[in-house]
């Protein structure tokens, strides 16, 4: 529990109001570099030595190859026919067969793949939006009000951040069976709405971004607490909320054990469960391997796009306290 302290400690750089929180973190990332570069030359010949730079170059290229090659292979492999997959060199393109592969993927088993993708979007999209609203409200309450039970809730939130979701998967499954919600979409959706890390982030963002004077002013003007939250505070918290949505989206997009336990109906499964099932079947069903590869490639695209376009948000979120994905 005491681990919440380093969380707080690392938030220092992004403490200003949300409007420039993300912006300033971007500037901050660049500023030191700009400052230090000239100072090396100014101090006279303290530029990193040639050997240091050469070793770093070699190392960096090796690192980039290590991290990029599997994804590169996935892209190349997804353009190949099943025959070419086994007979042509893995790291270079053969006959471009991507369109046919996608067509085959779409036709396979009545287009179940797209159903899985849609399911994943529902679980992750709806789930992360609702979860963020719930978490931000809770974090806001903890940051802005003093009330009986506040410390209990805070302690529970911090403590439960240490409980990994997979430890709860089996017990949650038993609960869902008891509630008659196993093998339903709600059974996957509802448990994903509880995300203590989201509350913690909401708490941190709200303590930084919502100035007390604004709330006082709103109160004097006669606005109710709910109205103040939804029309004023929520705007100040928008940046933080996007960060939480991102983490929640990726977290649920990746979840595997709970849906695997809960969902027997193939039509309700998310993409992870579906693809892993295909992978298992591909040991005996010829041609299914290509489907797995193309499917895997397609399943990465949405997350990658979201990721690259919203860099500043997750960077500030990570700065605000480590990740528990």
């Amino acid at each position: 529990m005491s681990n919440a302290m380093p969380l707080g400690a690392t938030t220092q750089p992004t403490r200003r109001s949300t409007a420039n929180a993300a912006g300033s973190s971007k500037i901050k990332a660049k500023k030191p570099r700009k400052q230090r570069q000239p100072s090396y030359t100014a101090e006279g010949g303290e530029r990193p030595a040639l050997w240091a730079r050469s070793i770093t170059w070699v190392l960096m290229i090796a690192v980039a190859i290590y991290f990029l090659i599997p994804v590169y292979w996935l892209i190349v492999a997804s353009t190949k026919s099943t025959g070419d997959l086994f007979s042509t060199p893995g790291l270079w393109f053969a006959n471009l067969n991507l369109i046919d592969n996608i067509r085959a993927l779409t036709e396979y088993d009545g287009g179940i793949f797209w159903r899985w993708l849609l399911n994943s979007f529902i679980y992750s999209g709806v789930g992360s939006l609702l979860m963020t609203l719930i978490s931000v409200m809770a974090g806001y309450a903890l940051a802005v009000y003093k009330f009986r039970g506040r410390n209990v809730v805070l302690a529970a939130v911090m403590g439960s951040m240490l409980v990994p979701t997979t430890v709860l998967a089996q017990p949650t499954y038993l609960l869902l069976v008891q509630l008659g919600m196993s093998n339903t979409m709600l059974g996957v959706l509802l448990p994903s709405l509880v995300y203590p890390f989201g509350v913690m982030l909401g708490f941190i963002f709200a303590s930084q971004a919502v100035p007390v004077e604004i709330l006082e002013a709103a109160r004097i003007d006669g606005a109710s607490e709910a109205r103040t939250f939804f029309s004023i505070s929520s705007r100040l918290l928008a940046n933080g909320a996007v960060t939480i949505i991102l983490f929640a989206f990726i977290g649920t997009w990746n979840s595997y054990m709970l849906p695997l336990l809960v969902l027997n109906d193939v039509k309700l499964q998310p993409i992870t469960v579906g693809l892993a099932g295909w992978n298992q079947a591909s040991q005996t069903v010829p041609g299914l391997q290509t489907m797995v590869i193309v499917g895997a490639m397609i399943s990465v695209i949405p997350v990658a796009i979201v990721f690259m376009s919203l860099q500043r948000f997750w960077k500030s979120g990570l700065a605000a306290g480590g990740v528990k994905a």
Partner: protein
Amino acid sequence: MTKTADKSARVARRAVSGGLRLAPYMFLVPFVVLFVVFMVVPIFIALYKSFFSIERSGLGFGGSNNSIFVGFDNYIQAFQNHEFIKSFGRVLLFAVIQVPIMLAFALLLALLFDSAVVRFKRFFQLSVFLPYAVPSVVAALLWGFLYQPKVSPIVSILSHLGVNAQFLSPDMVMWSMINIVIWSVTGVNMIIIFSSLQAVPRDIYEAARIDGAGEIRTALQIKIPMVSGAVMLTTLFSIIGTFQLFNEPQVLRSITSNISASYSPNMGIYQATTVGGDPNMGSAMAIILGLATFVLSLVVSVATNGKKSTGKKKGGK
């Protein structure tokens, strides 16, 4: 400092105006209800179930299955289950190998990105971070292909070099999974450490340079102690994560027979609950795993705090 004073003042003012007493509870209700239902209740259900067993033969109850109270029998059986105990040893070994390698790698990369030696930082940082966008199930599928001799370019390149790589052999399969996990999570941990490096005031480095410390010495004696908090945090979460190992072995199991159905504790739990048809046993195992994880994170937390206070002392001098 002024910030916290400011905050407590604001909190105090809030408390005075009495009409607001209900507001915080209204904001908290959805979270607290869901928290209780989906985090607290499941634990009690699992605890309750773990003390019962299902009697299958219909002795006097007309063939229907009925639960009978068995006390700690399920726990005793779980502890006598060699496969289950061995799976703990396996994830512990997994953590002991994977966590230090991954963190050293992440720390090295973070230090390099924070120094002046790396060009094209953005590109390299993004490439290290890219795997975070790949779901771990997909990462396991992907590396699974790269481990299979029939399709893997890596295996074929290595065989051209005269190395007969068998990534899925009994000896290698754990290393192969460790590689998948390292590939997936190094980027996140690098970014966490990197952000905390960026937060260190730059004048400290200036001072060190004036005192004649080089880049490497600055990194070892100033930067690493400064980010020890972040490193400890990532250590804690990495160890907890490794104990929950499930996705990678579960996915790779379909392409190799060298991963047993109860390879990790979580796989054993899954196995007992589904194929084994004994959710009560599964619950007992889940409780054991939960407790083990809790104890482990407590141990790491205590170690973390010890390290941090010494780090602070050093910084204070």
